[in-house]
């Protein structure tokens, strides 16, 4: 069975995101005054095989996020898992 995992990584809410602020300022400058918050993050897609069920995929992705893909000191992550045909 193969799985498609989509991972979003973002700075924790409590942490100021200078890049997000700059992008928001750009949108505001274009006249989109109603954009009141913007955070820039990372998006990753990965395919994963040789696991029996979604629970195992979740467990492994969680571990990979904590060990390498995200830095738990400053970042939060979330992901969703799709079964591939």
């Amino acid at each position, binding site marked *: 069975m193969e799985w498609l995992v989509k991972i979003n990584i973002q700075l924790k809410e409590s*942490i100021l995101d*200078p*890049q997000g602020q700059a992008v928001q300022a750009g949108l505001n400058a274009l006249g989109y005054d109603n954009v009141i918050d913007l955070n820039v993050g990372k998006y990753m897609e990965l395919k994963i095989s040789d696991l029996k069920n979604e629970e195992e995929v979740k467990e492994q992705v969680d571990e990979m996020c904590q060990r*390498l*893909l995200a*830095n738990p*000191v*400053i970042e939060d992550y979330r992901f969703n898992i799709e079964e591939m045909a």
Partner: protein
Amino acid sequence: MRFGIVTFPGSNCDQDLRYVVEDIFGIKTDMIWHKEDLENNYDAILLPGGFSYGDYLRSGAIARFSPVMDSVIDFANAGGFVLGICNGFQILMEAGLLPGAMKVNDNLKFVCKHVKLQVKNNQTPFTGQLEKEQVLNIPVAHQEGNFYIDDAGLEKLKNNQQIVLKYLNKSENPNGSIENIAGICNQERNVFGLMPHPERASEEILGSSDGRKIFESLISKIKEGVN
């Protein structure tokens, strides 16, 4: 006395470090490729600046899993002296040998210039030859040097006197780093990381030789141990 300098793919200050340690201070130096283990008995391991693995994912995040890092971590945990400069500092944090993390500089720019630093703790193996509150002129060159740690972590750093170097004041702070922190050590004092580049300030011809004192402190501390 023998120092080891680890070279990761993308390191670019490794030869500058070697020049300072070997040619200025006359210390035997091994250049250690990141895929090797630490084969000799070293008195200190230095992690140089640069852009290991192109800074992909996060600075230092992938270098932290280079094969050599297992033995660097063992070396540090056994009390060996480890100095991380710039990208080396980022790798030490990713490896969990130093607390905290780096964010992108507040102004989003790559900043390369001399800044004024102040010594906050001279009771470490890396700063013993400096005076407390002494001001140093040493260059920085980074885009991700905006040190972050949560409130509890910051409190711990303060209580244990782990803040070794600060940017002199807010206007000297090139990156938005919390409390102007430029360099920290671990609780045991044998691991030290800093964003400024002391190896780029080790000869007057480069505009400042204030960085020498960091290396002199370490060398003199090691000599003390031998005697």
